[in-house]
């Protein structure tokens, strides 16, 4: 089968072109590494079955990050393929370096120029085509002939840059006050005094959109659907299994959509790269990378989805710690649990502020957990971190944002409806057959919730966090009236922290292997136990609180030691 391979720099529009060529649905964005792995799709082109391949972006054929290595390996294994090199007209000088490398390799090539809407200047496409000795066309045009260029490319980098200068002389001019990647707004966004207040304002707006605006917009259809579904049948099985499932999913879909919408607005606008630059100092100190910020923000939607994006980070240890932090950060699946428990504790009116506080605590805890990992098994090689290419700041494309958010929400629905339904059925059968797993409950007695339902909920929660809500707070066996407020807080903290969900565990396992995954899971379990214990004691006002806290912090220190066997070093 013939292969058409899209190979280009990051963030030049490869996925947009891939979608156009294949009528596909690959995610597009404004962040280095939007395509995190090789995407393929079969199409029929000029009567021939053709495989179109979208590779992660790379700046050159000398790989720097893990995803770039994937691209370079793929290119080297498919030297007989037909290559499409997409170049961004605003960033032509840098993009042509990769073009020359592809020509140097003797590949069958053609070039597609992505004309940005804001490009001010001139490009003589025919002139460029003549000088490079390959076909050059615009983004919207049909594919042309693939050919091996006879251009003599010097092997040295200096030689290549000189050649690029001579190629562009006379056929390319660019009129722009700012270099590619910066705009007048960056003076404010990147100002070291203004940046943090701006980020806090952005965070408050994101939370307000997620928890106030979207639920308000969707309240009418959501209530209508739930009312209609509840009236379908009054049987116990229907109400406890089918309706409970849909209620759990439909009720929180607006918040999930809202969170995904906000994350993709920030990503598409280019703001996340600015954020990555600003937090880089602090993140490197605790063993992460500035580039960790995108998967971390994406995990607010879904942690399992975000794991795919850690590959853009160079240092493997920082990749692992980023992946570990994702399952502690707030996500769309944890949101319903937080919402319900806090509504029970402080009432619906005050829940918004309490949710923001809990989310803030989770963000801090994720960084604390990462810092522990960095002091222990996964120490970063700090000198290797963070080289970041800056995308342009732009008004987010509403169509792309809505498409990405709706795809994310559909993925969430597709993933969760079946799992929640099966789990609800299992729970229903357990109640009917009277299966008792209460023998596990004493494990949680020191942290306040030695109740069978809580144990069942936590077991199901390993499959998917949403199941904690449907198992522990919906239906006849609800924990709402069973646990005291301190125990409820401890249960909340434990359920938010204790392990990644099954999808995230699989994602981490696929990328880092079983050993690393096991390390993350058990350490996270202990971390959750300690934090839940501290919460229980603090909110319970126990007299031994400080002794217990010190004791638990001691356990934590023992489990995550500063020194460890070099043999296990990552």
């Amino acid at each position, binding site marked *: 089968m013939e292969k058409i391979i899209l190979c280009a720099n990051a963030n030049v529009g490869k996925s947009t072109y891939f979608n156009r060529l294949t009528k596909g649905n690959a995610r597009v964005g404004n962040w280095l590494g939007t395509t995190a792995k090789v995407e393929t799709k079969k199409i029929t082109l000029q009567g021939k079955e053709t495989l179109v391949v979208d590779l992660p972006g790379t700046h*050159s054929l000398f790989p720097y990050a893990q995803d770039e290595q994937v691209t370079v390996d793929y290119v080297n294994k498919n030297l007989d393929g037909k290559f499409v090199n997409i170049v961004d007209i*605003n960033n032509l000088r840098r993009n042509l370096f990769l073009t020359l490398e592809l020509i140097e390799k003797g590949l069958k090539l053609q070039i597609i120029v992505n004309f940005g809407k804001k490009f001010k200047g001139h490009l003589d496409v025919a002139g460029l085509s003549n000088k490079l000795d390959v076909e050059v066309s615009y983004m919207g045009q049909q594919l042309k002939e693939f050919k091996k260029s006879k251009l003599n490319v010097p092997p040295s980098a200096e030689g290549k840059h000189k050649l690029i200068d001579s190629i562009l002389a006379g056929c390319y001019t660019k009129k722009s006050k700012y270099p590619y990647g910066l705009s007048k707004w*960056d003076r404010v966004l990147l100002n070291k005094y203004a940046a943090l207040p701006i980020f806090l304002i952005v965070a408050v707006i994101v939370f307000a959109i997620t928890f106030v605006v979207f639920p308000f917009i969707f309240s009418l259809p959501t209530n209508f659907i739930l009312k209609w579904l509840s009236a379908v049948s009054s049987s116990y099985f229907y109400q406890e299994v089918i309706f409970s499932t849909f209620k759990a999913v439909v009720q929180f879909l607006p918040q999930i959509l809202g969170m995904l919408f906000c994350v993709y607005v920030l990503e598409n606008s280019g703001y996340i790269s600015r954020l990555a*630059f600003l937090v880089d100092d602090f993140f490197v100190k605790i063993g992460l990378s500035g580039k960790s910020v995108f998967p971390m923000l994406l995990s607010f939607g879904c942690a399992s989805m975000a794991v795919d994006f850690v590959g853009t980070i160079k240092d493997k240890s920082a990749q692992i710690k980023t992946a570990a932090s994702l399952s502690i950060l707030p996500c769309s699946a944890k949101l319903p649990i937080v919402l319900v428990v806090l509504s029970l504790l402080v009432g619906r009116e005050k829940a918004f502020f309490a949710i923001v506080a809990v989310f803030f605590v989770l963000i801090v805890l994720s960084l604390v957990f990462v810092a522990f990992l960095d002091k222990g098994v996964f120490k970063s090689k700090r000198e290797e971190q963070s080289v970041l290419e*800056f995308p342009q700041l732009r008004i987010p494309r509403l169509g792309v944002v809505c498409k990405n958010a709706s795809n994310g929400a559909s993925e969430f629905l597709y993933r969760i409806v079946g799992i929640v339904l099966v789990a609800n059925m299992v729970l229903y059968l357990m109640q009917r057959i009277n299966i008792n797993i209460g023998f596990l409950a004493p494990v949680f007695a020191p942290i306040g919730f030695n109740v069978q339902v809580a144990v069942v909920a936590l077991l199901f929660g390993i499959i998917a966090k949403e199941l904690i809500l449907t198992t522990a707070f919906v239906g006849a066996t609800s924990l709402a009236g069973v646990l005291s407020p301190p125990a409820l807080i401890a249960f909340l903290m434990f359920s938010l922290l204790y392990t990644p969900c099954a999808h995230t565990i699989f994602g981490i396992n696929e990328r880092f292997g079983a050993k690393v995954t096991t390390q993350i899971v058990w350490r996270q379990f202990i971390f959750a136990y300690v934090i839940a214990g501290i919460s229980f004691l603090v909110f319970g006002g126990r007299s031994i609180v400080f002794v217990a806290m010190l004791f638990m912090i001691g356990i934590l220190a023992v489990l995550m030691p500063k020194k460890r066997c070099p043999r296990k070093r990552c």
Partner: protein
Amino acid sequence: MRVGDVLVVNRVKEDCDKYLYLLSCGFVKGAHVTIHAISPLASAMLVQINGSVVCLKKSVLEKIEWIKT
């Protein structure tokens, strides 16, 4: 180094682990590099090279020999 400084590259030291990356970005002899922003704790910098902007660690920039203008 301060925001607004324009520097000229002499060479990238070969012991730099990003040697090839920097060369491919355009950090070759004679290239002009402008500093556009410095991160709050000054460990990362946004620099303009070849008409576009990249963020580099200060430690990486120290691996470049400059001819300051």
